[in-house]
């Protein structure tokens, strides 16, 4: 039994990594300007500086795919952390309104900066997104207090999301036309326009945050049995909760700062990964959710680019189409289980 289980885990990681590599290469190859597979491979190996194809691959597609990977991974881990924290299977940065909170703050900062002709550093964007996300998170914690009823939590989250979106719309209405074009693209969720500096900046934030999340897997596993048991086993609950909130909010905020709000990745991917590995052990699920989120977002971005090319869809449109059914499925399965016992 033990052997069979660990076998499944090796196979699971192998499948995830393989599909990550596959979709990474595919994303580099596929696009509006046709570059053949062999040409792509050649460009990747030789890195010729002069050709237009090389520029497209190295300066446009590569940063875009990398940010889809990194942000997708961050988003699904943020979702997993929030689900563990609230012990609610459909919690996630988008559903809880955290992404919308980030969006509001980033939009505000963006417009103010553009009006004064200031170029925004990505650190400022991240800080704004983090502030917005944290504000929403604290509001939700305040609302739900000690009662963590599943429906109550989600309803508060969705409502906060609506309020933030309404405020964002309000701000956008009074912004300059030039700003709106910029903002509109971003506020729908997209990985387009990412450059190498963005990739560097998001890596600087997300890698340590991921390491932190991974190191929390032991207390998370205890917390899964409930707060009382976790405390009785020696988990310092207050510190643990602060860390968990800080990390999940930071990860979600970072995604919003660079790619806008991306829906359903945070809910769908952890569930798919748990189903693949047939376990919910955080020490496995945290890295697996990161790779899974990478793959999910690369595929979604690929579809967003290609389905109606040259017209580009927002990535949220695609993630919602694939992610929302997962949420429905999870809820139905939970209902079945409840009626079965």
């Amino acid at each position, binding site marked *: 039994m033990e052997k069979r289980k660990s076998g499944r885990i090796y196979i699971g990681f192998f499948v995830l990594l393989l599909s990550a590599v596959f979709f990474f290469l595919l994303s580099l190859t596929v696009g509006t300007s046709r570059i053949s597979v062999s040409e792509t491979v050649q460009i990747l190996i030789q890195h010729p500086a002069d050709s237009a194809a090389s520029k497209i691959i190295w300066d446009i597609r590569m940063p875009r795919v990398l940010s889809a990977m990194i942000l997708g991974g961050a988003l699904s881990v943020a979702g997993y952390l929030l689900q563990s924290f609230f012990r609610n299977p459909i919690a996630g940065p988008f559903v809880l309104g955290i992404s919308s909170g980030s969006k509001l703050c980033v939009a505000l900062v963006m417009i103010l900066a553009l009006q004064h002709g200031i170029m925004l550093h990505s650190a400022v964007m991240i800080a704004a997104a983090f502030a917005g996300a944290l504000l929403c998170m604290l509001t939700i914690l305040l609302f739900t207090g000690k009662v963590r009823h599943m429906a109550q939590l989600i309803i508060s989250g969705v409502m906060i999301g609506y309020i933030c979106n309404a405020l964002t719309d309000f701000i956008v209405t009074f912004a300059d036309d030039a700003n709106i074009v910029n903002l509109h693209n971003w506020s729908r969720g997209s990985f387009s326009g990412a450059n190498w500096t963005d990739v560097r900046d998001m890596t600087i934030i997300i890698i340590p945050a991921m390491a932190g999340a991974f190191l929390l897997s032991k207390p998370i596993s205890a917390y899964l049995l409930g707060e009382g048991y976790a405390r009785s086993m020696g988990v310092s609950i207050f510190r643990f909760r602060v860390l968990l909130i800080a990390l999940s909010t930071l990860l979600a905020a970072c995604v919003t700062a660079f790619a806008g709000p991306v829906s359903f990745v945070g809910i769908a991917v952890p569930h798919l990964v748990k189903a693949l590995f047939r376990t*919910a052990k955080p020490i496995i699920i945290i890295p697996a959710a990161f790779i899974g989120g990478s793959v999910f977002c690369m595929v979604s971005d690929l579809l967003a680019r290609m389905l109606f090319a040259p017209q580009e869809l927002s990535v949220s449109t695609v993630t919602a189409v694939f992610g929302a059914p997962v949420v429905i499925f999870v809820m139905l399965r939970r209902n079945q289980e409840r009626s079965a016992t």
Partner: protein
Amino acid sequence: MSGQIILETRALTVGYLNKAVVSDISFQLHQGEILTLIGPNGAGKSTILKTITSELPCLSGEILLHGKQILSLTASEIAKQIAVLFTERISTERMTCFDVAAAGRYPYTGLLGLLSETDRAIVRDALQAVGMLSLADRDFRKISDGQRQSIMLARALAQQPDLLLLDEPTSYLDIGRKLDILTFLRSYVKEHQIAVIQSLHELDLAQKFSDLILCINGHHTVEAGTPEEIFQGDRISEIFAIQSGSYNPLFGSAEPIAVSGEPKVFVIGGGGSGIPLYRALYRAGIPFAAGVIHENDLDYPVCSALAVKVISEKPFEPISDDACQQAVRMIKTCETVICSNQTFGPMNAKNKYLCEYAEQCGKQKSTWK
């Protein structure tokens, strides 16, 4: 009996945010002993348990674990000595019973919580001890309530505690499983020289399975003692402020209040034969009297709870003339007399006479209907 002291409280006050719930709790718990908290709902049983686990601050007094102030120990040190089992059921996702029990190794594993071979062996032993090893690979959600409780107990045992804290370990369980768990604890504490503090709602079981009883009444005052000291006379009825009935500590049975009014039926019982009749009359709402019953008769505790009047005799004495006269008067005033007992010896010979007397009066019937 008296091994080392595992836990001691001295004039402990427990409660929430400076609002004391129970004060002046002092007891010593030795290796191999089970201490049971009893008392009405809301009296403070859980508050005491939560204070010992440091979930609630202790408002005054001291808690000593192995002679050391519990406040001076770190959470991890406490976790290696105290394990808990809560009443609330847990909801898990994709966890096998082994995974749940293995959570108990938390205080002993490293930074990432990976289990060593020793850890695995300890978890398997714990599952084996509660008889659940065969369920190790089953999904925790897909087993029965009783099995889940056993797995949670295995989790606590895997923590290798010196002290087990169990908050109503028998709720949700049927009587068979209740006895299983309590019998298991009884032998486990002796064998491993650990101690148990538990809260129970089942007074009869508390009385039978505990070395010490800590009893908290509705006014939040506390009494500690052996089961024999606590389960005496009407103390239980007083502690729980029982109003609609009575509790018999000898048999651990609860009885409702007698139907009031002039007795309409007189039951001549004895040897347990009258008990079904007393219950039937109570259900039908008919006031009745019973006699002549010896105070050591099986019938006695039931009819003294349910009958308006019981004509009784001292243990091992033949029925006196006086008692017999009282019974005759009772037969005269009652509409019906039922003679449930058909075996007569020297001690209850007069009951035979009473039966015959009722027959002559034409009041003797086999049922009251």
